């Protein structure tokens, strides 16, 4: 009788060990592509469609973008979607070592939405949670090219938070550039 009990306890312990290890191995990983660019654009402008456009980075734009990002900008053009006064951007910025792909929607010079489309680092992925990205809605650009809202950081994800802040400011700047140029081009 005791032997049986002992055996049952052993089996239970083994099953519990197995369950715990398999659970931990399936635990949350920050890495991943959460949404593709085309899907993001479609979702942002649904049910209508927006016009895909290209912003060529002139030396002046590059100089200002370099100040915002605190590093030189690579690439000669940026793709975005626009419908009236609403633009959507997909930009990349390195958190610690790997680039974070961030979608930013700007309408009437304020941020409407920030969404992390792809996160490639093993830690700091908390920036993708809506509770965090919601802080950006309504933020506008100050004269010093920083956000006019305070963004609460995340412990352990400081670099990712900085990256998202920079990209949010950059998208606002790009938005201002394209809105301004389309205003001057129209008769």
């Amino acid at each position, binding site marked *: 009788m005791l032997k049986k009990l002992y055996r049952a306890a052993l089996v239970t312990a083994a099953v519990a060990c197995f369950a715990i290890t398999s659970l931990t191995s399936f635990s949350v990983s920050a890495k991943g592509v959460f949404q593709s660019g085309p899907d993001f654009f479609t979702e942002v402008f649904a049910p209508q469609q927006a016009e895909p456009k290209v912003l060529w980075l002139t030396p002046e734009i590059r100089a200002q973008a370099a100040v915002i990002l605190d590093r030189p900008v690579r690439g000669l053009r*940026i793709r975005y979607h626009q419908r009236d006064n609403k633009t959507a951007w997909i930009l990349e910025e390195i958190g610690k070592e790997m680039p974070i792909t961030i979608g930013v929607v700007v309408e009437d010079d304020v941020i409407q939405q920030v969404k992390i489309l792809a996160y490639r680092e093993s830690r700091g992925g908390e920036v993708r949670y809506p509770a965090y990205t919601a802080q950006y809605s309504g933020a506008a650009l100050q004269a010093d090219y920083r956000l006019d809202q305070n963004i609460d950081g995340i412990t352990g994800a400081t670099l990712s938070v900085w990256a998202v802040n920079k990209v949010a400011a950059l998208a606002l700047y790009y938005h201002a550039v394209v809105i301004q140029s389309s205003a001057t081009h129209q008769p």
Partner: protein
Amino acid sequence: MLWHRRLGLSTFVVLIFLAISGFALNHSPGLKLNQINLSSNWLLTWYGFEVPTAEGFEVGGKWFYQDGNQALVVDGNSVASCTAPLSAIAQTTDGVFALCADGLNLLTTDGQLVEQFGTVDGLPANTQTVTVLDNRIYLTIGSSSINSVTIDSVTMEFNSDSLGLTVADIAPQTLKDIQQTAMPLPKLLQKKLKEQSSGPSISLETVILDLHSGRFFGQFGVFFIDLIGLLVCILSITGLMAWMKRR
């Protein structure tokens, strides 16, 4: 007596070397020997490291290659981020197209990055090569299986202005034949790449330790140092005997 002299003469060079190297090893942390890294080619080969010859693609008189870290390099200048391998390069009259593991880099003919077209932007995940035929850009998408349905390898034409992909009716073999293959980089760029990237290296401490123990020359070296040790024992005994005799 005679043997003592002979033994002494034949071992003194090695003994002095062992004394100096032993001194160096004893004070290795102070001398920071473990922080001095050696990476000369013959030493790495001697230690059995395979020194890979870096490869790249020569397009329009410029060399395009991956630097072993995360960058696409054009003639020594890092121009874009690129996860290895850099699998193909193709050129049209408008620009150069470099396919890395993380996306397709669109560059100007003088090697400046125009933009990146990654999997997030709609590049199929298993894109294998980029080829240019008649100034049109073709991407070869490898076969894949989704839910146990196998999808054959497809060739798609790539529009570099709209970043659009359309299925092209062209045999993969035709493109394969005209594809540019990677070539070893010229010596000058090899050297530059080595200076920039952190390849394999061996610390000076390891080298001295291996010389001291004889391991540097393999099994034979170890036996040789053993022999020297044995000779030192004999020397000390014969020396003691000679001293006793003289008294």
